[in-house]
């Protein structure tokens, strides 16, 4: 039953998040290196440092700090960022939409690209074309998003300087937005020129994130499709006179797609993790880029908030995958 699955997953999720919270909290407090000392101007005395520490609650014992933090979370207060002097929730809310748009766009591109190539490879089975696809994909599987991002920088900075290399949108266009979902909003409100500009900025980070996932999809989906294509029901459909492409899409695909969806879900969490470095390379203003700064600056509350946010995203993705796989299997649904 679907509800049972959801409840089970949510319970596991909460336990996992709790574990994550504890780990990151302890880890940070074990740090050599004082965030307060980093913020204070040179020449300040120990009294000033102590005062600042008290202000951020960093002088209390570990357990007390943890308790205060948990209490805050339950009330919706994740603390104040030491470097940005804003509520952590505000900071996260302002940067999350950018990363969400990037990750989701990358997912769509990966699925379209990977799915298309997998279908093409299936139609070309037992021809040299398929061997070429396999060979190329084998290499693409080895290359992580980090390398793709830099390779794209190289190509588009030197050979084809047609796309912007940094940021999310041209600064002069960044007005009149009600939400931070710039891309979605500009499309929905019909401002296609603006949307085009955003897309040109997002093109390279999206591609860098999408290509590794596409390669994974190609390998698994093509294999699953080929296995489905030799089944009797496909043969019967072929005898009814359906074309090859129709057979792949209408008969084979729905039986082949289950494992791919599960794997895509897992790989999507890696994609989201990859935003940390890809956003950095393209100076894209999302939570990934924020995370690196937060760590370098030892911004405890922000780091804690970010880790919990990433953890939550990963868990939600896993739940979504479990649910999707369950709904797609008619046997599980209709018993």
């Amino acid at each position, binding site marked *: 039953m679907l509800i049972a699955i959801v409840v089970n997953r949510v319970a596991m999720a909460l336990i996992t998040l709790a574990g994550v919270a504890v780990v990151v909290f302890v880890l940070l407090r074990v740090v050599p290196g004082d965030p307060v000392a980093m913020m204070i101007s040179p020449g300040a005395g120990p009294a000033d440092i102590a005062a600042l520490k008290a202000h951020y609650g960093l002088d209390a014992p570990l357990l007390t700090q943890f308790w205060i933090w948990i209490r805050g979370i339950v009330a919706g207060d994740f603390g104040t960022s030491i470097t940005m002097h804003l509520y952590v929730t505000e900071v996260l809310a302002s940067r999350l939409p950018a990363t969400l748009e990037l990750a989701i766009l990358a997912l769509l591109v990966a699925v379209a690209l990977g799915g298309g190539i997998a279908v093409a490879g299936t139609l070309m089975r037992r021809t040299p074309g398929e061997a070429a696809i396999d060979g190329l994909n084998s290499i693409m599987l080895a290359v992580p998003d980090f390398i793709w991002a830099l390779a794209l920088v190289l190509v588009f900075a030197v050979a084809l300087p047609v796309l912007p290399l940094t940021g999310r949108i041209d600064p002069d266009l960044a007005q009149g937005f009600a939400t931070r979902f710039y891309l979605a909003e500009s499309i929905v409100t019909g401002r296609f020129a603006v949307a085009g500009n955003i897309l040109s900025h997002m093109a390279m980070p999206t591609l860098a994130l999408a290509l590794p996932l596409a390669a994974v999809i190609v390998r698994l989906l093509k294999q699953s499709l080929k296995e489905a294509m030799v089944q009797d*029901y*496909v043969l019967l459909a072929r005898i*009814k*006179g*359906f074309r090859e492409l129709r057979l792949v899409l209408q*008969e084979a695909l729905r039986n082949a797609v289950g494992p791919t969806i599960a794997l895509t879900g897992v790989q999507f969490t890696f994609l989201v993790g990859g935003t940390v470095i890809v956003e950095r390379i393209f100076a894209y203003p999302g939570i990934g880029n924020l995370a690196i700064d937060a760590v370098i600056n030892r911004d405890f509350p922000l780091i804690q908030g970010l880790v919990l946010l990433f953890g939550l995203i990963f868990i939600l993705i896993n739940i979504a995958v479990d649910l999707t796989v369950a709904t797609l299997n*008619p046997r599980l649904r209709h018993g």
Partner: protein
Amino acid sequence: MTAPRLAIEALSAISLRDGNRPILRRVSLAVATGEVHGLVGESGAGKSTIAKAILGIIPSQVKVTDGRIGFEGRDLLSLSPKDLRAVLGRDIALVPQDPSTALNPSRRIDAQMTNGLRLKRGLSANQARLRAHALLEEVQIRDPERVLDSYPHQLSGGMRQRVLIAAAFALEPKLVIADEPTTALDVTVQKQILRLIRSLQERHGTSVLFVSHDLGVVAKICDRLTVLYMGKVMEQGSTADVLAGPRHPYTKALLAANPRYDRPDTGLEPTPPDVIAALRAEIAAFDAGVAGSR
């Protein structure tokens, strides 16, 4: 006498993997309009190869070396894939052997029955569903609406086979190939299915090529028979004639091996070794003759 619906002439095929071992040896048979023609033989005799050749799904390791499959005045073997696709489904249909694997587990029966109708006859979704409903009634399924909305795993083996039969007759094809349609079913269900096929065939005037290894089954439903052994036609004629007075030793051996429910049990007798030897010699002579004429 009108021209036969299906006319196979001197069909020969070899297995490329097996050192060009012959699979079919100049097989000829004809199925008239409205006739149920049985194609009988042991496994490996070549029956399914003939069926696959008609349907254009010969595996890559088999090669047709000679012969013609005449259907509606055209040689199916010489058709382009596009032309063959036009014929299939609309004029020729298949009732497959295993109902548990022949249906897509992830699609509802509705979709699987109507897709052919919508592709070949251009019916709308509603029209196709109505026709599917009517067909399910013809195959004596009591609750067609429920079955149409079901997935294959929710139906019994017998029901699935009825669905497949209904789907085969859905487009009013001129020829239906029934590939061992009762083999995967219980004995009690077999008789019903056979009667069903016969009644559908009579009502729609369809020709049927009934492939089977079971003489007993074939005897109940077929007008004419072709007996196949190692890819070569051993005997051909009307069912009554062949069964009453078989001329070929192989047919005699087959009949003897079939348990008869209406006679006291005489025990199964294996094909006598001298018959086997004679058959081998016959085949060898044939092959030599073929080789010599090249």
